[in-house]
């Protein structure tokens, strides 16, 4: 038996497919959805817990990859704590992908998790420590 939390990132064209149905039906896995953020024709994100036999789990992951899905461990998610963010902007010159971007003329910072490549550079560069990973302490090196 294996129990694993993962995050799936769907490119826009895959969103329409019944992924969960296949995970249950073809790979005999138990699927527990923790968070879903899926919009038709846009990139989607699905956070879930999979459990089942080790072999089926590995086969399922392989199948998901073949479908063009990006799979990440849960601890790799980056969270922007908007309540901690002071909108200074210091992170925007550190973030390599503009996932953290400065909006003018509002002069506020926004976080686009779809652009985030989880390089983790912002975690320590943010003085207010408003950037976090889901799993605590994964940023304390």
């Amino acid at each position: 038996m294996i129990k694993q939390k993962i995050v799936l990132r769907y490119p826009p064209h895959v969103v329409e497919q019944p992924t969960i149905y296949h995970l249950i039906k073809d790979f005999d896995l138990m699927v527990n959805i923790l968070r879903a953020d899926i919009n038709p024709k846009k990139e989607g994100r699905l956070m879930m817990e999979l459990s089942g036999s080790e072999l089926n789990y590995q086969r399922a992951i392989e199948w998901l990859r073949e479908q063009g899905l990006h799979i990440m461990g849960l601890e790799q998610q980056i969270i922007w704590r908007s309540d901690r963010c002071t909108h200074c902007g210091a992170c925007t010159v550190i973030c390599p992908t503009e996932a953290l971007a400065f909006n003018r003329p509002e002069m506020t910072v926004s976080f686009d998790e779809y652009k985030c490549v989880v390089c983790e550079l912002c975690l320590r560069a943010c003085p207010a420590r408003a950037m976090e990973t889901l799993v605590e302490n994964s940023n304390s090196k």
Partner: protein
Amino acid sequence: MKINRSIEEINEKIKAGKAVVFTAEEIIDVVKEKGLEEASAQVDVVTTGTFGPMCSSGAFLNVGHPTPRIKLNEVSLNSVPAYAGIAAVDLYIGATALPTSDPANLKHPGDFIYGGGHVIEDLVSGKAIRLEASAYGTDCYPLKRIETTIRLSEINEATLYNPRNAYQNYNVAVNLGPKTIYTYMGVLKMNMGNANYSSAGQLSPLFNDPLLKTIGIGTRIFLGGGLGYVAWHGTQHNPSAKRAENDTPVYPGATLALIGDLKQMDSRWLRGLSFLGYGATIQVGMGVPIPILNEEIMRYCSVRDEDLYAPVVDYNRGYPYKEGTELTLVSYADLKSGSININGQAVPTASLSSYAGAREIAGTLKDWIEAGQFTLTAPSAPLPSIEAEIKLNALPQKDPDKREV
């Protein structure tokens, strides 16, 4: 000058709910539209704000006496040491103090995850703070050790006293070196990979009163979400800094020492910060109302980012080793555009001070005044300005054992 308004007149209007107030950002267009004279005739107060890292900050606490009494000697709050070299149960917790167990920069760059600034934020948000103290014991103060918790509501006094805040202008930091450096101006990437600045520019209090004609000792202000006062000029106060034609300094200039009752402040505007590789500090929100006494004051308040300049300084060698002067001067309008040009190179810019926060503070102060909750004060004494001819000193490095004549 045609307009000649007194603070008393303005306060009468505030109390009657009739004061006309604009923020230092809004007033720019008002003056552009109506002209200086008409705008001065119509507007009573312009509000300013800033929300940036301000290391020279801290709080005096009186924690009360246990039974038996104690004369605190070594004290820590959530493991962060506080200064106890004053009366028995008085303390000062400074924003940049670090726990003695903090590895600091042993493994460079250090994280500085928790320091004095975070203690102040936690206190203000009402959290329980662990107090550990030792003492040598005296006949009048026999207790030698205490471990307990304190909350802001349980202690006698908590006075924010910040020896240097609200810098009138500041350096724009770049790194000319070949490696990333970690500074109080943030992470600076090699070969001028980024340029970090830290001022609200046109909203910043001392940019709107460049010669300190209205701000003085006793000026009532917005401090940390509550009320505060200007206590004195700040440390490193340098009104002698070179100025542009509009009287604003193009280098770090005047500073303010601020004071206020921590008990009525809000942790939203007092935020512990961790500067990678540098240390812990605090982000302070403060704002000053400027009475429009005449056209001259209004002209100062209508200053725009386009007309405010700051020096670009290398933090690899230039600043730490005092090598060379600034690379160039840039305007706050350019800084806020997201990119500046330094010797032909386009350099992305970022701020450490929150302009959105500055805007909100100026807006809050405006709301308070419009609602009649906040009246203006005339200074009890002026702050030293240009005519004081202040010169900043460097620390003398002398042979301390050599007798001086």
